[in-house]
């Protein structure tokens, strides 16, 4: 369904080159959910945008290939990629600002549908919008309302509706619940799970919330400083995290099964990507760092069912 190979995104800033995504490869089967986790600024969102070639200037995709459902994304013209974009659903981080304040909810749908399906008239598009909203438990007569008349959770449901309006096979959700409270978050996640089953969606879920990933994802990719440092099946990673960074991430999240365990933070903060550390980019913060870590960059190697980039497993 999705095949990303050696994808590299650079932001060429005045201060220097920032490699936000560094040779990331991943592949995703139809109907699977991939969770991408990592701290702020590790390149998760950029990766999500890059999949539909939506990297904002001064960023560029400097290397790599992306194949969605047999289509080589990197070879498409601007007009062709524009058409693909609607077919790949995209759900944004902040529902409060992701809808155009001067457009009615229904018109968001009408425009989206009309952009991609010329022959659909406004009435039909509105009918479809109403149906989608109904399925997301928003009363259909509210298509005439403006975004500010909706609550945060409802807006996020609208965003999800927009993401699903053109029956995409691939849905990219960039922190879909970050700005929502936990109850609404649970509802949205339940909804996404159900939609995933109903439409047999392939989902890329980008988040820093380990709990969401545990609940939703089949596969996890852990990103650090633009690179995938560990990737594997969700159960495996939760049971036995290999990379010290993954271990740190899991320890820093509250665990309801073991409330007596205190949360342990990872000291320091993600590196400045203009001048990243030598060798393994995690070594300055790594509790297990030893001699080769500062010298050589670890390769992403296969270990059982898992991929991991750490000198501990060389």
């Amino acid at each position, binding site marked *: 369904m999705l095949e990303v190979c050696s994808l590299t995104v650079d932001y060429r800033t005045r201060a220097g080159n920032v490699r936000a995504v560094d040779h990331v490869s991943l592949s995703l089967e139809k109907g699977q959910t991939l969770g991408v986790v990592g701290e702020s600024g590790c390149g998760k969102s950029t990766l999500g*945008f890059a999949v*539909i070639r*939506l990297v*904002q*200037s001064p960023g560029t995709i400097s290397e790599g290939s992306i194949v969605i459902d047999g289509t080589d994304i990197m070879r498409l013209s601007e007009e062709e990629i*524009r*058409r*693909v*974009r*609607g*077919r790949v659903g*995209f759900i*944004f*981080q*902040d529902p409060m*600002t*992701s*809808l*155009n*304040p*001067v*457009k009615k909810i229904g018109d968001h749908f009408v*425009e*989206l549908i009309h*952009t*991609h399906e010329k022959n659909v008239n406004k009435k039909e598009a509105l009918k479809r919008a109403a149906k989608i909203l109904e399925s997301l438990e928003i009363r259909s007569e509210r298509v005439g309302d403006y975004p500010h008349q909706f609550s945060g959770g409802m807006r996020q449901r609208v*965003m999800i509706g*927009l*993401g699903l309006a053109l029956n995409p096979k691939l849905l990219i959700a960039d922190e879909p619940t970050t700005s929502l409270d936990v109850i609404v978050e649970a509802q949205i996640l339940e909804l996404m799970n159900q939609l995933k089953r109903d439409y047999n969606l392939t989902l890329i879920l980008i988040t820093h919330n380990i709990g969401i990933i545990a609940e939703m994802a089949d596969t996890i990719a852990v990103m650090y400083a633009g690179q995938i440092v560990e990737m594997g099946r969700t159960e495996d990673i939760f049971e036995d995290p290999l990379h010290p960074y993954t271990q740190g991430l899991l320890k820093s999240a509250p665990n309801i099964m073991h409330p007596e365990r205190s949360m342990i933070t990872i000291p320091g903060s993600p590196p400045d990507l203009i001048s990243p550390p030598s060798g393994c980019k995690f070594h300055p913060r790594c509790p297990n760092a030893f001699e080769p870590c500062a010298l050589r960059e670890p390769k992403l190697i296969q270990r059982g069912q898992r991929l991991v980039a750490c000198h501990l497993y060389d």
Partner: protein
Amino acid sequence: MSRAGSTGRILVQLLPRFVQLKGRGVAGWTVIIGSVLVASIVVITILAPWISPHNPIAINVGPILAAPTPEFPLGTNHLGQDMLSRIIWGGVTMLQVAVISVAVCLAVGLPIGLLATYAGGLPDKVSSLVMDSVYAFPGLVLAIAIAAMLGRGVVNMSVAIAVVYVPSYYRIVRSQVLTVKELPYVEAARALGGRSGTILFRYVLPNVVPSIVSVATINFADAILTAAGLTFVGLGLSVAVPDWGWDLTYGRQLLPAGAWWVITFPGVMIVLLALGFTLIGEGLSEIMSPRLEQ
């Protein structure tokens, strides 16, 4: 549907909105007072052919340089022209110049600001450079230079004024576009495959309009003052057109002779009209800019 019918319908639709302004506190009242001022002057101007007691450009309709009397309530000037008739007719030029120059400003500043800024990079740099250079000139001096080059006439005067004020539109539009184009909903539209044109006109433009409206209203006032200034220095219309600016010019020469009425009344009219537009503009910008609400 007849034109009168549709005008009536528009008025009926506008009326409740106007009443809504009352709930907006001081800003609402500012807009209401400004609108009343402007509307009265517009009505007087429209009704000029019927309500003006004399021909505004005919000379010797009354005594020369007479102080206000019941027959000539605002006095007469040195040519024996009736000042009241001249005041009633004089608004035409001012309003024409104001409307045309603001229209030209919008027609030039808005598209350039929108397209160049949205495109970014070189187009943005070049247009900003040009606009900033124009902006750096003192307004009236530049208007005088252009008006002198173009010659007389309502349109030429409006163009001269428009050139001066285009950069302020451009800058307002630019700052708005810069903000709006980075907002998540614009990015969302792009991610969902929206065309650049659609994004520009349906997402960016409508969110730029409110600030443009308040700038435009305030610019009406600026245009009127600049127009009066241009006429005052002798670059306005021909003497045969009744114009508050001309009356100011004459009035200045007549003031030492004790004829205060020739300069006072056109001066007051210019101030009232400019004040009206300024009040509307300030009030609107206060109502429409969210940071000033609460």
